């Protein structure tokens, strides 16, 4: 029972205060205070469809409550599953790379592809809101890159990837790197059909990013802690950042990287090789 509006139901509460303000949620986690629920409509106490049905009977007799019970992301998940089997049939390892803007994701990708030097057939999908600029940087390494401009969209979705797949020269047993739109919230919700999500956090961002944007870190299998060459100039605490990330996801692997100096690139490529062997 909700203490604010008195709405019933043991599992569900009617409310609109959830998920939105990450900072407040992080603060709350520290203080242990309970969440205040704001009722949408206190005149509707029941959270169960039975109650809603009852409520609706006193309106027009033609109105009826229809059970739906469908996942809002169901369509995306079906397309992602199709992408996953398409990739599996060709034994292509696909990675979904996610980060906030300015994490140095494209530079890191360029450095990794240069180091890879064509030893492994690779292709890149570049998600970006506006420009073709990142794809051009990738193509300069000799690796084919397809740009998806999402316009106002803040994330790639499975359908965009499904449309991109047949247009890319993808070799059997190759590598597909999908650079998602720079955003630490939205891409986490949309499965693209990748084998792994990789989150890139730069040391110029706060150590507490994993706690502020937990969904991204919870969904990832690997974290690249990037711009390690800047550590001497920052107060960034590497151990603490990793500890926070492990609170959200204890199984998250971590590699310290620098696109400028080349730290961790070999380790990341070895990780890719290991995952490819088991793909």
């Amino acid at each position: 029972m909700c203490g604010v509006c008195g709405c019933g139901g043991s599992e569900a509460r009617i409310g609109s205060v959830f998920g939105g303000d990450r900072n407040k949620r992080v603060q709350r986690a520290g203080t242990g205070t309970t969440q205040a629920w704001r009722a949408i409509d206190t005149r509707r106490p029941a959270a169960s469809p039975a109650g809603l049905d009852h409520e609706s009977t006193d309106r027009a007799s033609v109105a009826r409550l229809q059970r739906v019970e469908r996942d809002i992301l169901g369509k995306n998940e079906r397309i992602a599953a199709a992408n996953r089997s398409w990739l599996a049939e060709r034994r292509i390892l696909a990675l979904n790379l996610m980060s906030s803007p300015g994490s140095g994701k494209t530079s890191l990708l360029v450095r990794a592809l240069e180091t890879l030097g064509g030893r492994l057939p690779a292709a890149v999908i570049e998600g970006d809101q506006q420009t073709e600029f990142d794809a051009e940087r990738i193509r300069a390494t000799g690796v084919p890159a397809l740009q998806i401009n999402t316009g106002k969209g803040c994330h790639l979705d499975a359908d965009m990837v499904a449309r991109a797949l047949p247009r890319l020269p993808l070799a059997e047993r190759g590598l597909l790197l999908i650079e998602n739109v720079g955003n630490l919230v939205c891409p986490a919700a949309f499965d693209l059909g990748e084998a792994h999500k990789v989150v890139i956090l730069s040391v110029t961002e706060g150590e507490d990013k994993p706690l502020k944007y937990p969904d991204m870190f919870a969904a990832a299998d690997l974290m690249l802690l990037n711009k390690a060459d800047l550590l001497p100039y920052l107060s960034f605490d590497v151990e603490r950042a990793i500890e926070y990330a492990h609170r959200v996801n204890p199984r998250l692997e971590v590699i310290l990287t620098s696109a400028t100096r080349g730290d961790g690139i070999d380790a990341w490529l070895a990780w890719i090789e290991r995952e490819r062997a088991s793909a």
Partner: protein
Amino acid sequence: MHELSLAEGIRDIVEETATMEAATRVRRIVLEIGALAAVDADALRFCLDEVLSDSIAEGAEVDVIEVPGRGRCRQCGTLAPIDERHTPCPSCGAYGLEVLEGDRMRVQAVELE
């Protein structure tokens, strides 16, 4: 703001249901949203207003039922509520509880005419 994509997903489900049921109007949409689903409810409502205009569900009332997070400790098996992704196990203190409930988003029901 992925709430716009979610709103479009909701509209598609609602329109399909209304067509299947030969409804003339959708009066209410009941959503079930997990506390761990990373959705901003106000943003979602804002986007729904936008994408439902000129649809069969224009002006429909939107009710949001929150499903609290619930999970199981991977170390000791304790079942516990999860307020945040980094909520530790109340029994053994281990992090990374397996989420069993509260990370999904569903259209639970619609009220049709």
